[in-house]
């Protein structure tokens, strides 16, 4: 889902760069407040894992593939602020070292794949958890569904950018095509996210930011997750 140079015009790309910089700035400040020193290796691992899994394109339809975006997964594992930063790190490394994602489109790509998926995905995750019992099973299911929807949100974000600064193809057609194929890719994202969160919950449940409330059964609701989940 990496936008190359040229898909979106320069003024829109530039404006997106400013928006992305603002979003990264907010994430840095919020992560600075919530992230504990011992969590740095875990957050680095989440970024590295997302880089690895983004290489694994899976087929979704004839002649089309998809890959993990990872923002929702990262947000559920290390929180929405550090999670957005994890994907932003991946995108910067990909653009600079692997020529994947245009340099002029870096802001667009950070908005779509880091900010929208991490923040949007985490908001959906919290919403789903509100309606489900406080169990590990609820966390894995909510994580998968939220991750799947986050991919569709990212594709909608691209269409918005395309509507503002794209080429001549009709926006309605691009919208239908993007949302259609990314609904399929979202299913893959949901499966990978469910598996990953499930494994981490099985091995080290204390490391899952979005399940921190399960560690302290006296406090109900995912809001208590703000302080727990440190690496021990």
């Amino acid at each position, binding site marked *: 889902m990496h936008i190359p140079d040229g898909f979106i015009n320069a003024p829109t790309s530039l404006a997106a760069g400013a928006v992305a910089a603002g979003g990264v700035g907010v994430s840095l400040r919020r992560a600075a407040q919530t992230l504990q020193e011992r969590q740095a290796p875990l957050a680095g691992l989440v970024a590295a894992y997302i880089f690895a899994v983004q*290489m694994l394109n899976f087929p979704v339809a004839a002649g089309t593939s998809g890959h993990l975006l990872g923002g929702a997964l990262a947000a559920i594992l290390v929180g929405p602020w550090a999670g957005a930063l994890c994907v932003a790190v991946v995108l910067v490394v990909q653009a600079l070292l692997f020529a994947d994602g245009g340099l002029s489109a870096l802001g667009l790509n950070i908005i779509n794949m880091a900010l929208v998926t991490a923040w949007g995905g985490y908001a959906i995750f919290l919403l789903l958890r509100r309606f489900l019992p406080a169990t590990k099973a609820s966390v894995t299911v909510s994580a998968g569904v939220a991750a799947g929807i986050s991919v569709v949100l990212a594709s909608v974000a691209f269409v918005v950018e395309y509507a503002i600064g794209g080429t001549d193809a009709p926006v309605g057609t691009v919208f239908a095509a993007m949302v259609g194929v990314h609904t399929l890719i979202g299913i893959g994202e949901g499966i990978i996210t469910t598996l990953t969160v499930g494994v981490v919950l099985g091995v080290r449940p204390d490391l899952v930011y979005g399940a921190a409330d399960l560690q302290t059964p006296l406090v109900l609701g995912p809001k208590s997750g703000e302080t727990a989940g440190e690496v021990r």
Partner: protein
Amino acid sequence: MFVVGGLLVAVGLAMLVSGFASSSPDGLNKVAEDHGIAASARQHLFENGPLAGYAVKGVHNDRLSTGISGLIGVLVTFGVGLLLFATVRVLRSGPDRSEPTRAP
């Protein structure tokens, strides 16, 4: 321990499984091809970089080339992430640099 195990998993995926990944265009690129958007794409500034396109320049076995580029990518991403998250705390406002004790 968890981080070491997780890194091994990431390295394994990027080195060994990546060779089996689909080479079809991803959703965005397919839509761009189908609707004439792809024609407006410009070449990446680092198109000829040593790791461009997840291949190591000079390594001619495709699977090996992808695998090594994946290994490098995982290690670089981990390093950059670790550095970022280890230093992000300097942004914490105010003189209180202690561990957070309450939700913000």
